[in-house]
Protein backbone atom coordinates (compact mmCIF):
# COMPACT_ATOMS: atom_id res chain seq x y z
CA UNK A 1 0.00 0.00 0.00
CA UNK A 2 2.93 2.33 0.48
CA UNK A 3 4.85 3.47 -2.54
CA UNK A 4 7.38 6.23 -2.59
CA UNK A 5 5.45 9.47 -2.14
CA UNK A 6 5.60 11.97 -4.97
CA UNK A 7 6.81 15.55 -4.55
CA UNK A 8 3.38 16.97 -3.90
CA UNK A 9 2.68 14.36 -1.25
CA UNK A 10 6.02 15.04 0.40
CA UNK A 11 5.46 18.80 0.33
CA UNK A 12 2.01 18.31 1.88
CA UNK A 13 3.41 16.06 4.58
CA UNK A 14 6.06 18.63 5.44
CA UNK A 15 3.62 21.53 5.37
CA UNK A 16 1.02 19.87 7.57
CA UNK A 17 3.66 18.62 9.98
CA UNK A 18 5.07 22.09 10.35
CA UNK A 19 1.75 23.96 10.36
CA UNK A 20 0.52 25.33 13.67
CA UNK A 21 -3.10 25.22 12.55
CA UNK A 22 -5.19 22.82 10.49
CA UNK A 23 -5.22 23.84 6.83
CA UNK A 24 -7.88 23.73 4.15
CA UNK A 25 -7.20 22.32 0.68
CA UNK A 26 -7.30 25.87 -0.67
CA UNK A 27 -4.83 27.15 1.91
CA UNK A 28 -2.51 24.24 1.13
CA UNK A 29 -2.75 24.80 -2.61
CA UNK A 30 -2.08 28.50 -2.07
CA UNK A 31 0.86 27.79 0.18
CA UNK A 32 2.42 25.37 -2.24
CA UNK A 33 2.09 27.92 -5.00
CA UNK A 34 1.43 26.10 -8.21
CA UNK A 35 -0.67 23.16 -7.01
CA UNK A 36 -4.24 22.59 -8.19
CA UNK A 37 -6.78 22.11 -5.37
CA UNK A 38 -7.98 18.90 -7.04
CA UNK A 39 -4.44 17.49 -7.08
CA UNK A 40 -3.96 18.52 -3.47
CA UNK A 41 -7.17 16.80 -2.46
CA UNK A 42 -6.18 13.60 -4.23
CA UNK A 43 -2.72 13.66 -2.66
CA UNK A 44 -4.24 14.19 0.80
CA UNK A 45 -6.41 11.11 0.30
CA UNK A 46 -3.35 9.04 -0.57
CA UNK A 47 -1.51 10.35 2.48
CA UNK A 48 -4.49 9.79 4.78
CA UNK A 49 -4.66 6.18 3.60
CA UNK A 50 -0.92 5.75 4.17
CA UNK A 51 -1.09 7.09 7.71
CA UNK A 52 -4.25 5.22 8.60
CA UNK A 53 -2.41 2.33 10.24
CA UNK A 54 0.38 4.38 11.78
CA UNK A 55 0.80 6.02 15.20
CA UNK A 56 0.18 9.41 13.65
CA UNK A 57 -2.79 10.01 11.41
CA UNK A 58 -3.86 12.54 8.83
CA UNK A 59 -7.47 13.59 9.35
CA UNK A 60 -9.95 16.04 7.88
CA UNK A 61 -12.02 18.05 10.34
CA UNK A 62 -14.47 20.64 9.09
CA UNK A 63 -12.74 20.82 5.68
CA UNK A 64 -9.36 21.40 7.28
CA UNK A 65 -6.61 18.84 7.52
CA UNK A 66 -4.16 18.10 10.29
CA UNK A 67 -1.95 15.37 11.70
CA UNK A 68 -2.75 13.93 15.12
CA UNK A 69 -1.74 10.89 17.13
CA UNK A 70 -3.78 7.73 16.64
CA UNK A 71 -6.62 7.42 19.18
CA UNK A 72 -5.47 3.95 20.31
CA UNK A 73 -2.08 5.40 21.26
CA UNK A 74 -3.81 7.62 23.82
CA UNK A 75 -2.66 5.47 26.73
CA UNK A 76 1.03 6.18 26.12
CA UNK A 77 0.41 9.91 25.84
CA UNK A 78 -2.34 10.58 28.29
CA UNK A 79 -0.50 10.13 31.53
CA UNK A 80 1.37 13.41 31.53
CA UNK A 81 -0.81 15.38 29.21
CA UNK A 82 -4.22 15.87 30.72
CA UNK A 83 -4.87 19.27 29.26
CA UNK A 84 -8.45 18.98 28.14
CA UNK A 85 -10.94 21.49 29.41
CA UNK A 86 -13.51 20.17 31.87
CA UNK A 87 -16.96 21.34 31.04
CA UNK A 88 -19.79 21.69 33.52
CA UNK A 89 -22.88 19.61 32.97
CA UNK A 90 -24.73 22.69 31.78
CA UNK A 91 -21.84 23.40 29.41
CA UNK A 92 -21.90 19.93 27.86
CA UNK A 93 -25.67 20.04 27.40
CA UNK A 94 -25.70 23.49 25.88
CA UNK A 95 -22.84 22.51 23.57
CA UNK A 96 -24.71 19.40 22.45
CA UNK A 97 -27.92 21.35 21.86
CA UNK A 98 -26.07 23.92 19.76
CA UNK A 99 -24.24 21.24 17.79
CA UNK A 100 -27.34 19.19 17.02
CA UNK A 101 -29.70 22.10 16.39
CA UNK A 102 -27.54 24.85 14.98
CA UNK A 103 -28.13 27.65 14.40
CA UNK A 104 -30.09 28.03 17.60
CA UNK A 105 -31.08 30.94 19.83
CA UNK A 106 -30.66 31.09 23.56
CA UNK A 107 -34.44 30.91 24.03
CA UNK A 108 -34.53 27.71 21.98
CA UNK A 109 -31.73 26.22 24.06
CA UNK A 110 -33.63 27.13 27.19
CA UNK A 111 -36.87 25.66 25.95
CA UNK A 112 -35.13 22.32 25.43
CA UNK A 113 -33.42 22.40 28.81
CA UNK A 114 -36.39 23.83 30.69
CA UNK A 115 -34.10 26.15 32.56
CA UNK A 116 -32.38 29.45 32.06
CA UNK A 117 -28.87 29.31 30.72
CA UNK A 118 -26.43 31.49 32.53
CA UNK A 119 -24.45 33.84 30.32
CA UNK A 120 -21.28 32.27 31.69
CA UNK A 121 -22.08 28.92 30.08
CA UNK A 122 -22.17 30.36 26.58
CA UNK A 123 -19.10 32.46 27.35
CA UNK A 124 -17.12 29.39 28.32
CA UNK A 125 -18.09 27.65 25.08
CA UNK A 126 -17.19 30.70 23.02
CA UNK A 127 -13.92 31.18 24.88
CA UNK A 128 -13.04 27.55 24.17
CA UNK A 129 -13.55 28.45 20.51
CA UNK A 130 -16.23 25.82 20.01
CA UNK A 131 -19.23 28.11 19.64
CA UNK A 132 -19.72 31.41 17.89
CA UNK A 133 -22.53 33.86 17.27
CA UNK A 134 -23.71 33.00 13.78
CA UNK A 135 -25.98 35.98 13.19
CA UNK A 136 -29.40 36.99 14.36
CA UNK A 137 -32.79 35.40 13.94
CA UNK A 138 -35.07 37.70 11.95
CA UNK A 139 -37.85 37.55 14.51
CA UNK A 140 -38.94 40.20 17.03
CA UNK A 141 -36.04 41.13 19.26
CA UNK A 142 -33.58 39.79 16.63
CA UNK A 143 -32.03 37.27 19.06
CA UNK A 144 -28.45 36.13 18.49
CA UNK A 145 -28.17 32.61 17.14
CA UNK A 146 -25.31 30.29 17.95
CA UNK A 147 -23.46 27.67 15.92
CA UNK A 148 -20.37 25.52 16.31
CA UNK A 149 -16.97 26.29 14.80
CA UNK A 150 -14.38 24.30 12.83
CA UNK A 151 -12.40 24.10 16.10
CA UNK A 152 -15.34 22.28 17.65
CA UNK A 153 -15.26 19.66 14.89
CA UNK A 154 -11.49 19.42 15.24
CA UNK A 155 -11.53 19.01 19.00
CA UNK A 156 -14.18 16.30 18.99
CA UNK A 157 -12.74 14.49 15.99
CA UNK A 158 -15.66 15.10 13.66
CA UNK A 159 -15.18 15.43 9.90
CA UNK A 160 -18.39 17.41 9.70
CA UNK A 161 -21.63 17.84 11.63
CA UNK A 162 -22.96 14.75 9.87
CA UNK A 163 -20.52 12.82 12.05
CA UNK A 164 -22.23 13.91 15.27
CA UNK A 165 -23.03 10.71 17.16
CA UNK A 166 -26.55 9.52 16.47
CA UNK A 167 -27.60 12.62 14.55
CA UNK A 168 -29.29 10.60 11.79
CA UNK A 169 -31.42 8.65 14.26
CA UNK A 170 -32.32 11.81 16.15
CA UNK A 171 -33.37 13.46 12.93
CA UNK A 172 -35.32 10.41 11.74
CA UNK A 173 -37.22 10.09 15.02
CA UNK A 174 -38.03 13.81 15.06
CA UNK A 175 -36.14 14.36 18.29
CA UNK A 176 -34.47 17.45 16.82
CA UNK A 177 -37.86 19.01 16.03
CA UNK A 178 -39.51 21.39 18.49
CA UNK A 179 -42.19 19.91 20.77
CA UNK A 180 -44.95 21.81 18.94
CA UNK A 181 -43.96 20.36 15.57
CA UNK A 182 -43.59 16.88 17.04
CA UNK A 183 -46.97 17.13 18.72
CA UNK A 184 -48.61 18.35 15.55
CA UNK A 185 -47.00 15.56 13.56
CA UNK A 186 -48.28 13.00 16.03
CA UNK A 187 -51.80 14.36 15.87
CA UNK A 188 -51.72 14.24 12.09
CA UNK A 189 -50.36 10.70 12.09
CA UNK A 190 -52.88 9.48 14.59
CA UNK A 191 -55.72 11.38 13.00
CA UNK A 192 -57.67 8.18 12.36
CA UNK A 193 -56.97 6.70 15.76
CA UNK A 194 -57.73 9.75 17.81
CA UNK A 195 -60.59 11.34 16.00
CA UNK A 196 -61.36 13.78 18.79
CA UNK A 197 -61.36 17.17 17.08
CA UNK A 198 -60.76 18.88 20.41
CA UNK A 199 -57.28 17.52 20.36
CA UNK A 200 -56.23 19.70 17.44
CA UNK A 201 -53.09 21.45 18.51
CA UNK A 202 -52.94 25.17 18.80
CA UNK A 203 -49.62 26.89 18.62
CA UNK A 204 -50.56 29.41 21.26
CA UNK A 205 -50.96 26.75 23.90
CA UNK A 206 -47.25 26.69 24.43
CA UNK A 207 -47.46 28.89 27.46
CA UNK A 208 -49.94 26.67 29.23
CA UNK A 209 -47.98 23.67 28.20
CA UNK A 210 -45.28 23.92 30.72
CA UNK A 211 -44.41 26.10 33.63
CA UNK A 212 -40.68 25.92 33.21
CA UNK A 213 -40.65 26.90 29.57
CA UNK A 214 -39.07 30.28 30.05
Amino acid at each position, binding site marked *: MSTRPDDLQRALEA*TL*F*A*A*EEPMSVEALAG*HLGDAEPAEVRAALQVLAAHYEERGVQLVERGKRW*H*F*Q*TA*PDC*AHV*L*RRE*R*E*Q*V*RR*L*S*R*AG*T*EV*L*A*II*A*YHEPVSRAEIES*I*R*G*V*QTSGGTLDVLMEAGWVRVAGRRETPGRPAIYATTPEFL*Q*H*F*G*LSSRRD*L*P*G*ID*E*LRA*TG*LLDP*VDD*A*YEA*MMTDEGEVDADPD*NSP*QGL*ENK*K*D*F*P*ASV
Partner: protein
Amino acid sequence: MSADGLMFDAPVADETDDWSGPASAPADDGALYLELDGWEGPLDLLLDLARRQKVDLRSISILSLVDQYLDYIDRAEALRLEMAADYLVMAAWLAYLKSSLLLPKEEQDEPSAEELALRLQLRLQRLGAMRESAARLMARDRIGRDVFLRGAPEGLRIDRKTQWKCDWYGLVQAYGQVKARTAPAIHMVRERPVMTLESALDRVSAMLGVTLDWMALEEFLPPHAEPGLRRSALASSFVAALELARLGKAEIEQEATFGPMRLRRIPA
Protein backbone atom coordinates in the same frame (compact mmCIF):
# COMPACT_ATOMS: atom_id res chain seq x y z
CA MET B 1 -29.62 0.86 24.70
CA SER B 2 -32.45 0.85 22.23
CA ALA B 3 -31.88 1.51 18.58
CA ASP B 4 -33.42 4.94 18.70
CA GLY B 5 -31.26 5.95 21.60
CA LEU B 6 -34.05 6.72 24.01
CA MET B 7 -33.34 4.24 26.75
CA PHE B 8 -31.32 5.27 29.69
CA ASP B 9 -30.69 1.95 31.36
CA ALA B 10 -27.00 2.19 30.54
CA PRO B 11 -25.55 4.47 33.19
CA VAL B 12 -24.60 7.63 31.39
CA ALA B 13 -22.15 8.58 34.07
CA ASP B 14 -19.76 5.82 33.12
CA GLU B 15 -19.27 7.16 29.64
CA THR B 16 -17.29 10.20 30.46
CA ASP B 17 -15.37 11.87 33.19
CA ASP B 18 -16.70 15.20 32.06
CA TRP B 19 -20.04 14.38 33.48
CA SER B 20 -20.66 15.77 36.90
CA GLY B 21 -23.86 16.28 38.80
CA PRO B 22 -26.53 13.98 40.09
CA ALA B 23 -26.39 11.61 37.15
CA SER B 24 -23.03 10.46 38.40
CA ALA B 25 -24.42 9.65 41.83
CA PRO B 26 -25.24 6.01 42.56
CA ALA B 27 -28.63 5.63 41.00
CA ASP B 28 -29.44 1.95 41.54
CA ASP B 29 -31.31 2.02 44.83
CA GLY B 30 -33.56 4.91 43.91
CA ALA B 31 -32.34 6.91 46.89
CA LEU B 32 -32.09 10.40 45.57
CA TYR B 33 -30.10 13.09 47.21
CA LEU B 34 -32.52 15.44 48.80
CA GLU B 35 -31.05 18.56 47.39
CA LEU B 36 -31.74 20.52 44.29
CA ASP B 37 -28.38 22.09 43.58
CA GLY B 38 -27.37 19.15 41.48
CA TRP B 39 -30.16 19.47 38.95
CA GLU B 40 -30.32 21.78 36.02
CA GLY B 41 -33.88 22.78 36.80
CA PRO B 42 -37.15 20.92 37.38
CA LEU B 43 -37.21 19.36 33.92
CA ASP B 44 -33.83 17.83 34.59
CA LEU B 45 -35.07 16.42 37.90
CA LEU B 46 -38.16 15.03 36.16
CA LEU B 47 -35.99 13.41 33.51
CA ASP B 48 -33.86 11.85 36.20
CA LEU B 49 -36.95 10.48 37.92
CA ALA B 50 -38.28 9.22 34.59
CA ARG B 51 -35.01 7.39 33.95
CA ARG B 52 -35.50 5.54 37.22
CA GLN B 53 -38.64 3.96 35.79
CA LYS B 54 -36.18 2.05 33.59
CA VAL B 55 -38.45 2.07 30.59
CA ASP B 56 -38.45 3.77 27.24
CA LEU B 57 -39.29 7.42 27.73
CA ARG B 58 -42.17 6.90 25.31
CA SER B 59 -43.84 4.49 27.71
CA ILE B 60 -43.21 6.17 31.02
CA SER B 61 -46.18 6.61 33.29
CA ILE B 62 -46.74 10.31 33.64
CA LEU B 63 -48.97 9.72 36.63
CA SER B 64 -46.35 7.84 38.59
CA LEU B 65 -43.73 10.35 37.46
CA VAL B 66 -45.88 13.13 38.88
CA ASP B 67 -46.22 11.20 42.13
CA GLN B 68 -42.50 10.72 42.38
CA TYR B 69 -41.79 14.36 41.75
CA LEU B 70 -44.36 15.56 44.28
CA ASP B 71 -43.09 13.07 46.82
CA TYR B 72 -39.54 14.22 46.27
CA ILE B 73 -40.45 17.87 46.68
CA ASP B 74 -42.44 17.00 49.83
CA ARG B 75 -39.48 15.28 51.38
CA ALA B 76 -37.14 18.07 50.38
CA GLU B 77 -39.50 20.55 51.96
CA ALA B 78 -39.79 18.43 55.08
CA LEU B 79 -36.02 18.66 55.34
CA ARG B 80 -36.44 22.45 55.25
CA LEU B 81 -34.10 22.71 52.34
CA GLU B 82 -34.28 25.88 50.46
CA MET B 83 -36.68 25.35 47.62
CA ALA B 84 -36.13 27.08 44.33
CA ALA B 85 -39.32 28.68 43.08
CA ASP B 86 -39.06 26.87 39.73
CA TYR B 87 -39.34 23.49 41.43
CA LEU B 88 -42.39 24.55 43.41
CA VAL B 89 -44.11 26.00 40.36
CA MET B 90 -43.45 22.74 38.56
CA ALA B 91 -44.86 20.83 41.55
CA ALA B 92 -48.04 22.90 41.49
CA TRP B 93 -48.42 22.43 37.76
CA LEU B 94 -47.86 18.68 38.02
CA ALA B 95 -50.43 18.46 40.81
CA TYR B 96 -52.88 20.20 38.51
CA LEU B 97 -51.95 17.88 35.65
CA LYS B 98 -52.48 14.86 37.85
CA SER B 99 -55.91 15.95 38.98
CA SER B 100 -56.89 16.69 35.38
CA LEU B 101 -55.67 13.31 34.24
CA LEU B 102 -57.90 11.70 36.82
CA LEU B 103 -60.98 13.57 35.69
CA PRO B 104 -63.30 12.08 33.08
CA LYS B 105 -62.35 13.35 29.68
CA GLU B 106 -65.48 15.43 29.10
CA GLU B 107 -64.87 17.46 32.27
CA GLN B 108 -61.34 18.48 31.30
CA ASP B 109 -60.36 22.01 30.32
CA GLU B 110 -58.66 22.89 27.09
CA PRO B 111 -56.00 21.82 26.39
CA SER B 112 -56.74 18.32 27.55
CA ALA B 113 -54.67 16.73 30.26
CA GLU B 114 -53.65 14.05 27.77
CA GLU B 115 -52.23 16.70 25.50
CA LEU B 116 -50.30 18.31 28.35
CA ALA B 117 -48.98 14.95 29.43
CA LEU B 118 -47.96 14.10 25.90
CA ARG B 119 -46.20 17.41 25.47
CA LEU B 120 -44.35 16.87 28.76
CA GLN B 121 -43.31 13.46 27.52
CA LEU B 122 -42.06 14.95 24.24
CA ARG B 123 -40.03 17.48 26.14
CA LEU B 124 -38.48 14.84 28.35
CA GLN B 125 -37.59 12.78 25.28
CA ARG B 126 -35.85 15.77 23.71
CA LEU B 127 -33.93 16.69 26.81
CA GLY B 128 -33.04 13.02 27.27
CA ALA B 129 -31.79 12.81 23.70
CA MET B 130 -29.58 15.87 24.18
CA ARG B 131 -28.27 14.58 27.49
CA GLU B 132 -27.27 11.34 25.87
CA SER B 133 -25.82 13.09 22.83
CA ALA B 134 -23.76 15.32 25.09
CA ALA B 135 -22.36 12.25 26.82
CA ARG B 136 -21.54 10.59 23.51
CA LEU B 137 -19.93 13.78 22.26
CA MET B 138 -17.76 14.09 25.36
CA ALA B 139 -16.73 10.46 24.94
CA ARG B 140 -15.26 11.00 21.49
CA ASP B 141 -11.52 11.04 20.81
CA ARG B 142 -10.79 14.52 21.93
CA ILE B 143 -7.71 16.56 21.13
CA GLY B 144 -5.57 16.95 24.21
CA ARG B 145 -7.13 13.93 25.91
CA ASP B 146 -7.19 11.06 23.43
CA VAL B 147 -5.36 12.39 20.42
CA PHE B 148 -2.56 14.90 20.34
CA LEU B 149 -1.28 17.46 17.91
CA ARG B 150 2.36 17.95 17.02
CA GLY B 151 4.18 19.06 20.14
CA ALA B 152 6.56 21.48 18.55
CA PRO B 153 5.49 22.43 15.05
CA GLU B 154 8.08 24.40 13.11
CA GLY B 155 5.37 26.75 11.88
CA LEU B 156 4.91 28.11 8.41
CA ARG B 157 6.31 31.50 7.60
CA ILE B 158 5.31 33.78 4.82
CA ASP B 159 7.79 36.54 4.15
CA ARG B 160 6.23 39.43 2.38
CA LYS B 161 8.49 41.18 -0.02
CA THR B 162 7.60 44.36 -1.78
CA GLN B 163 8.31 44.67 -5.44
CA TRP B 164 8.45 48.39 -6.16
CA LYS B 165 7.09 49.56 -9.43
CA CYS B 166 8.12 52.67 -11.32
CA ASP B 167 8.49 53.19 -15.06
CA TRP B 168 10.83 55.23 -17.18
CA TYR B 169 8.26 57.85 -18.04
CA GLY B 170 7.32 58.34 -14.40
CA LEU B 171 10.97 58.82 -13.53
CA VAL B 172 11.69 61.36 -16.26
CA GLN B 173 8.44 63.19 -15.67
CA ALA B 174 9.19 63.45 -11.96
CA TYR B 175 12.56 64.98 -12.73
CA GLY B 176 11.00 67.41 -15.16
CA GLN B 177 8.56 68.50 -12.54
CA VAL B 178 11.23 68.92 -9.89
CA LYS B 179 13.18 71.12 -12.26
CA ALA B 180 10.11 73.05 -13.31
CA ARG B 181 8.99 73.50 -9.75
CA THR B 182 12.31 74.74 -8.48
CA ALA B 183 13.48 76.75 -11.53
CA PRO B 184 13.93 80.47 -10.70
CA ALA B 185 10.66 82.17 -11.58
CA ILE B 186 10.89 85.09 -14.08
CA HIS B 187 7.81 87.27 -14.26
CA MET B 188 7.14 88.94 -17.58
CA VAL B 189 4.22 91.27 -18.24
CA ARG B 190 2.72 90.71 -21.63
CA GLU B 191 2.60 93.69 -23.96
CA ARG B 192 -0.92 95.02 -24.13
CA PRO B 193 -2.50 97.64 -26.40
CA VAL B 194 -3.09 100.69 -24.22
CA MET B 195 -4.01 104.34 -24.69
CA THR B 196 -1.84 106.46 -22.47
CA LEU B 197 -3.24 109.40 -20.51
CA GLU B 198 -1.24 111.81 -22.71
CA SER B 199 -2.69 110.56 -25.96
CA ALA B 200 -6.19 110.50 -24.42
CA LEU B 201 -5.79 114.16 -23.34
CA ASP B 202 -4.69 115.11 -26.84
CA ARG B 203 -7.50 113.14 -28.41
CA VAL B 204 -10.29 114.43 -26.11
CA SER B 205 -9.14 118.10 -26.33
CA ALA B 206 -8.94 117.89 -30.08
CA MET B 207 -12.40 116.40 -30.43
CA LEU B 208 -13.94 118.91 -27.96
CA GLY B 209 -12.65 121.68 -30.21
CA VAL B 210 -14.89 120.54 -33.04
CA THR B 211 -18.30 121.29 -31.46
CA LEU B 212 -20.00 123.02 -28.53
CA ASP B 213 -22.65 120.25 -28.14
CA TRP B 214 -22.74 117.66 -25.35
CA MET B 215 -20.95 114.49 -26.37
CA ALA B 216 -21.11 111.10 -24.64
CA LEU B 217 -17.74 109.91 -23.31
CA GLU B 218 -17.95 106.80 -25.54
CA GLU B 219 -17.92 109.01 -28.61
CA PHE B 220 -14.34 110.01 -27.83
CA LEU B 221 -13.10 106.42 -28.08
CA PRO B 222 -11.42 105.04 -31.18
CA PRO B 223 -14.34 103.48 -33.10
CA HIS B 224 -12.81 100.17 -34.25
CA ALA B 225 -10.57 99.40 -31.30
CA GLU B 226 -10.39 95.81 -30.06
CA PRO B 227 -11.98 95.32 -26.59
CA GLY B 228 -8.70 95.48 -24.64
CA LEU B 229 -7.68 98.77 -26.21
CA ARG B 230 -11.23 100.09 -25.91
CA ARG B 231 -11.29 99.53 -22.14
CA SER B 232 -7.91 101.20 -21.77
CA ALA B 233 -9.09 104.13 -23.91
CA LEU B 234 -12.27 104.47 -21.84
CA ALA B 235 -10.30 104.69 -18.61
CA SER B 236 -7.76 107.14 -20.02
CA SER B 237 -10.44 109.29 -21.68
CA PHE B 238 -12.38 109.48 -18.39
CA VAL B 239 -9.29 110.68 -16.54
CA ALA B 240 -8.59 113.10 -19.41
CA ALA B 241 -12.13 114.48 -19.12
CA LEU B 242 -11.68 115.04 -15.37
CA GLU B 243 -8.38 116.77 -16.05
CA LEU B 244 -9.94 119.06 -18.66
CA ALA B 245 -12.81 119.87 -16.25
CA ARG B 246 -10.27 120.72 -13.53
CA LEU B 247 -8.49 123.09 -15.92
CA GLY B 248 -11.84 124.73 -16.68
CA LYS B 249 -11.71 123.73 -20.32
CA ALA B 250 -14.71 121.34 -20.21
CA GLU B 251 -17.81 120.57 -18.16
CA ILE B 252 -19.20 117.15 -17.28
CA GLU B 253 -22.78 116.03 -16.86
CA GLN B 254 -24.28 112.82 -15.58
CA GLU B 255 -28.02 112.62 -14.92
CA ALA B 256 -28.11 109.42 -12.90
CA THR B 257 -25.65 107.29 -11.01
CA PHE B 258 -23.98 105.00 -13.56
CA GLY B 259 -25.85 106.87 -16.26
CA PRO B 260 -24.14 108.03 -19.46
CA MET B 261 -21.52 110.67 -18.86
CA ARG B 262 -21.43 113.61 -21.25
CA LEU B 263 -19.06 116.51 -21.65
CA ARG B 264 -18.76 119.67 -23.71
CA ARG B 265 -16.31 122.43 -24.24
CA ILE B 266 -16.47 125.60 -22.16
CA PRO B 267 -15.84 128.40 -24.63
CA ALA B 268 -12.81 130.32 -23.62
